[in-house]
């Protein structure tokens, strides 16, 4: 605070009166926007504090100005000592606007210090600030701008406002493939006029002749460039360029159109992500003594039945239009059985094999399954009933969801992705064991991995402590005439353990993600559930056990809150 020669005071105020203190008056000078306090001798001035000075300034309408830090405290002390003179204590200030552009030019940030008695930031000043900094209007968010203008009008402070953001480039579309064959939807069973679905015609595989168009490739597209806040272009990435998988057998590129895949043989097309495999087809009327067991590299279509004691094993799909009786089907694709499966076994005796066995790398469907061992990596769809069977599938078990009784009765069933049936169990309270969700051992595996992770982490810390000690002590070891760098060996051991820790973390993440994928798995009996039914659902981290004791009109187990 400085003392300067007096000016003509246009605005004054006088403080209280008490002996030994100075009298005070405030003066504001319009021409240069300064505020002065004038202290004069007084026989009756009173002692004043900072708060009282602020009150006096407010009464004079001068509190809007900017006062130097500590100025009022100093002034109060001077008053109370009885000093006299004129002292500069404050100024009128205009609002200040500051725009900062990030070094990568992806973001512009705005700060506004409000006016103190002076001019606020006008819309035109804001506009000129933005334009002088070459801020692109398309990078300015309209909602942010509207709010900012309101704040400026009301003289509010603005801190670190993201006034402009770069417009991100849009990556190009990757190459994509479109099947030219009827997709699965078209192959699903359709109801006739009376609402009946004939599962004998559930999935009549389409076959293709050589030269049939199978798949079209749409090349990668270029992206759209973005723009930074000052108008510079941000280069976009071209979409990933994918090619047909030409290793798939039974298909080839069209000689005149490199984006078109054609069938090279007659067979059943199997659509893959970036190509189509055509499996050769073996068509047989029945599998019996006339044909013997079938072992074929391709798809097999059986127009009639697979009779007792025979087996069919092939790398492609298997379609049986009739019955499978006490027989075995093993498929590298799907198995579709228009009729049913009839087997035999005593399920209460472990180790006893079922006389009917189905195993598929894909989906399985049948009208009914009776006393069979069923293994599938996809879904299992049964129309009427699955009776006294052992069924282990990685997909979902659906019974009667597209027409039919839909009953699961007796046996042992585990479907990783859940079970949905109309009726679970039966009137005779037959023991029916149903499991769904993830393998319970998955959680044990996760616990072991966590435990191992913690231990390896601790070992790494132990070695680092040892390493620090070695380094502090000189870090070498004399072995005979050889001097060894001990620290190097310990560092190698630490690196090996840290590599193990990283690998454990990756395993843990993968298992946690897999566990999470089971959160929604349920077992449903939509119409009726009978006593004798026991259900176990492992929803990742949560396990639900249910024993049905009273007949229920329908229930869902798993995934409850």
């Amino acid at each position, binding site marked *: 605070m400085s003392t300067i020669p007096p000016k003509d005071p246009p605005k004054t105020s006088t403080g209280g009166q008490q002996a030994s203190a100075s009298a005070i008056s405030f003066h504001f000078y319009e021409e240069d926007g300064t505020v002065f306090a004038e202290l004069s001798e007084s026989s009756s001035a009173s002692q004043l504090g900072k708060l009282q000075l602020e009150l006096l300034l407010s009464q004079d309408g001068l509190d809007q100005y900017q006062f130097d830090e500590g100025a009022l405290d100093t002034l109060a002390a001077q008053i109370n000592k009885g000093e006299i003179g004129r002292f500069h204590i404050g100024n009128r200030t205009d609002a200040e606007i500051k725009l900062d552009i990030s070094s990568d030019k992806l973001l512009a940030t705005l700060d506004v210090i409000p006016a103190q008695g002076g001019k606020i930031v006008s819309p035109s000043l804001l506009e000129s600030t933005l334009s002088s900094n070459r801020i692109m209007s398309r990078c300015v968010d309209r909602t942010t701008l509207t709010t900012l203008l309101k704040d400026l009008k009301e003289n509010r402070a603005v801190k670190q406002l993201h006034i402009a953001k770069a417009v991100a480039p849009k990556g190009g579309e990757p190459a994509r493939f479109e099947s030219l064959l009827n997709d699965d939807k078209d192959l699903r069973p359709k109801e006739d006029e009376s609402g009946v679905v004939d599962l004998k015609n559930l999935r009549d595989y389409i076959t293709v002749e050589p030269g049939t168009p199978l798949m079209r490739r749409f090349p990668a597209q270029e992206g759209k460039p973005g723009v930074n806040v000052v108008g510079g272009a941000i280069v976009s990435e071209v979409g990933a360029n994918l090619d047909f998988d030409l290793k798939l057998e039974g298909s080839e590129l069209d000689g005149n159109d490199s984006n078109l895949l054609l069938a090279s043989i007659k067979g059943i097309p199997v659509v893959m992500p970036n190509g189509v495999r055509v499996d050769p087809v073996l068509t047989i009327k029945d599998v019996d003594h006339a044909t013997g067991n079938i072992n074929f590299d391709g798809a097999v279509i059986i127009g009639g039945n697979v009779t007792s004691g025979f087996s069919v094993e092939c790398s492609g799909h298997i379609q049986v239009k009739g019955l499978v009786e006490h027989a075995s089907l093993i498929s590298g694709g799907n198995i579709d059985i228009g009729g049913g499966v009839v087997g035999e076994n005593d399920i209460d005796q472990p180790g006893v094999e079922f006389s009917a066995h189905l195993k598929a790398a894909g989906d399985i469907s049948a009208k009914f399954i009776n006393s069979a061992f069923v293994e599938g990596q996809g879904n299992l769809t049964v129309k009427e009933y699955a009776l006294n069977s052992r069924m282990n599938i990685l997909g979902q078990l659906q019974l009667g969801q597209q027409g039919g009784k839909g009953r699961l009765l007796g046996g042992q069933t585990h479907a990783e992705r859940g079970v949905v049936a109309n009726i679970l169990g039966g009137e005779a309270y037959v023991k029916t064991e149903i499991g769904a969700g993830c393998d319970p051992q998955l959680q044990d595996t996760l616990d072991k991995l966590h*435990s*191992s992770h*913690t*231990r*390896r982490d601790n*070992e790494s810390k*132990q*070695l680092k402590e*040892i390493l620090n*000690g*070695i380094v502090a002590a000189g870090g070498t070891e004399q072995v005979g005439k050889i001097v060894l760098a001990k620290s190097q*060996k*310990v560092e*190698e*051991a630490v690196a*090996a*353990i840290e590599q*193990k820790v990283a690998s454990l973390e990756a395993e843990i993440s993968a298992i946690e993600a897999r566990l999470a994928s089971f959160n929604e798995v349920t077992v449903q009996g939509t119409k009726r559930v009978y006593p004798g039914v026991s259900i176990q659902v492992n929803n990742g981290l949560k396990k639900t056990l249910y024993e049905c004791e009273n007949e229920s009109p329908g229930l869902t187990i798993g995934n409850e809150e």
Partner: protein
Amino acid sequence: MNDDAKLIVASIMSDDVHTVTTERTLGELKTIFEKVSYHHLLVENEGKLVGVISDRDVARNLSPFLETSSERRSDRSLLDMTAAELMATQLITVGRESSIDFASILLLENNISCLPVVQENGQIDGIVSWKDILKCHVYGVES
């Protein structure tokens, strides 16, 4: 056995471990060490490791006058000391899946000659000594 599996403690440790309970007396421990070729006993309580006793710990606590003409009653009473009083409880251990390098560094830098192999809950799985590690380096794991 793949290379990674060969480089862990489980591949070289002894899982036939001689353990004693905390109530065993110095006299009993002396008798044990007189009969066996190894130098360490693991002290367990309900299958969990609580301490380690070496033949040197036993020898250190025996009176030199024991079984001599100068033997006093106090010399003989020392034989009633228990394993709990004698054992080392600052335990340095490894797990089955700890690397052999890690175990080797612990042995060298802590100036000890064997490491108990324990689970996370302290359950004893085995023991690994400097000889086991030396054999591994000289003859390989398959030996």
